[in-house]
């Protein structure tokens, strides 16, 4: 078992070191072929806001060398609808579900976190910090959520700012850190329009690894989860060697689910 919230009265014990990253399997309702909940130590939902969000306009995907940019704009049907549609199923799954809080909706965070305190289907939260945040912002945001809930709280940081922001997140009560969302990048879509957003896919992995290593060197007292562009066994092993206790997979589940299965099985040994 891998304990991701060692200082929290609620445990967040993962039976496997691989998590399905935010939205990788939707709200646990969108499974790529061959992928099942039993492969993972935990599942993270797509970012959820209090009210429904239509997200970005269509044309959300652009390719980069060895990666892509995907801008959903935190598209989601809103907290109540998500809970109505999925909470029952989450209770039945034998794997912890973490609800991601949309980085674009800071004002919602305490409201959602407070409501989840008594929800048996949700084992914790993953709060998404947007690129460009300052340590003082992170301390405020994490503090707000921490006061609203005692549930295990993971804080996902932009990989390129991870070492700068990590102490503030931990100081304000984060139970674990996720490193992280890819650096801001731009690419041209097939129709010629330019799309700007976090880099994803294998191209993002070097940024993840340097972020994990930098945060590990800080010697903070919380577990580190590596996520962002992990596609191969070597990537996962490099993250563990750098100090991560668990990894998150997302785009690999979409692009090559069989490779994700192989990676999970190889880590099981």
């Amino acid at each position: 078992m891998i304990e991701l919230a060692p200082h929290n009265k609620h445990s967040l014990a993962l039976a496997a070191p691989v998590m399905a990253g935010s939205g990788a399997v939707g709200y646990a309702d969108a499974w790529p072929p061959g992928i099942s909940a039993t492969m993972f130590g935990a599942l993270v939902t797509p970012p959820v806001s209090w009210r429904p969000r239509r997200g970005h306009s269509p044309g959300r995907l652009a390719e980069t060398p060895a990666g892509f940019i995907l801008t959903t704009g935190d598209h989601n049907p809103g907290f109540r609808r998500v809970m109505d549609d999925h909470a029952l199923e989450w209770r039945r799954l034998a794997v912890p579900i973490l609800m991601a809080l949309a980085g674009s909706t800071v004002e919602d965070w305490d409201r959602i976190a407070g409501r989840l305190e008594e929800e048996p289907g949700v084992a914790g939260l993953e709060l998404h910090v947007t690129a460009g945040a300052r340590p003082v912002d992170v301390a405020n945001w994490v503090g707000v959520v921490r006061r609203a809930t005692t549930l295990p709280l993971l804080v996902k940081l932009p990989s390129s700012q991870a070492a700068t922001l990590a102490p503030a997140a931990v100081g304000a009560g984060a139970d674990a850190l996720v490193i992280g969302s890819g650096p801001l990048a731009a690419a041209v879509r097939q129709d010629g329009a330019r799309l700007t957003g976090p880099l994803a896919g294998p191209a993002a992995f070097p940024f993840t690894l340097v972020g994990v290593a930098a945060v590990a060197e800080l010697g903070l007292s919380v577990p580190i989860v590596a996520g962002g562009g992990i596609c191969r066994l070597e990537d996962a092993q490099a993250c563990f060697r750098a100090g991560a206790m668990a990894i998150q997979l997302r785009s690999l589940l979409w692009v090559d689910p069989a490779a994700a299965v192989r990676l999970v099985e190889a880590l099981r040994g």
Partner: protein
Amino acid sequence: MIQITATLIERRSLGAGQELRLRAPALARSLTAGQAVLVQTGCGLAPYLRRVFYPIALDDESWTLRVPADGDWGHAWLRTVAIGATLDCLGSVGNGFSVPAGSRNVLCLGEDAPASVAGPGISAWALLPAIVQAASEGRAVAFALEAALARDLIPSQRLPAAVEYHTAIRPPRIPDRPASPGVGVAQFLPELLPWADVVLAAGSLAFYSELATAVRAVRYELGRGFAQILYPAAFLCGVGACQACVADLATGRHRICQRGPVLDLVDVVGEA
């Protein structure tokens, strides 16, 4: 959806493009015209995103994709793959064309346009399996196709003999510019639309919008169930997780891998 390894068993050149026939019985048997297959290209992790293809021929053992002669790096790699090599395929994505049981007269309408205009993988070639199937079921099939150049038209010998084939050369559509009336397949529609029981179409959104205008003009109304169109979308996961493929339809914002890629024309342009 399944993930499967397909073996390249035949390559045909057509102009600068290529047709690749892939042996993959489990996939071929579950595919219908208009459903997408996401094919991995390249070696290693680049390109990372799969390429979207719609089958242009289907049998029990194999399916055929058409690699356009464009500058896409994944397509360029596919054009070099050796016979006997394997390709990783994810499919099928979404819903395909489906001709209602009572439809005797099937009208297929296609536009040849580059992917930058029509969308990834969308081409009139995607109608071919539906045309072949409808003809084999004894339905009357008419196919009207427009292209900017004669060399881009589908050769008539690729169609069943019984299919009535109309072709037109027209200058490429310019997005957001009004259509010139009576050019391209539009010239055939006053005669063909009253005859048709069902329409299957593949082309750009502008092409579908002109089709809707023509249906309303010729048949006085556009009802649900009359016209099916292949909607352009960039697929990433194909299972509804990533939200890359969303489109703004008449009924709201939807994931095309779940709702489409074949949609009722009314879903796209609305009832009015």
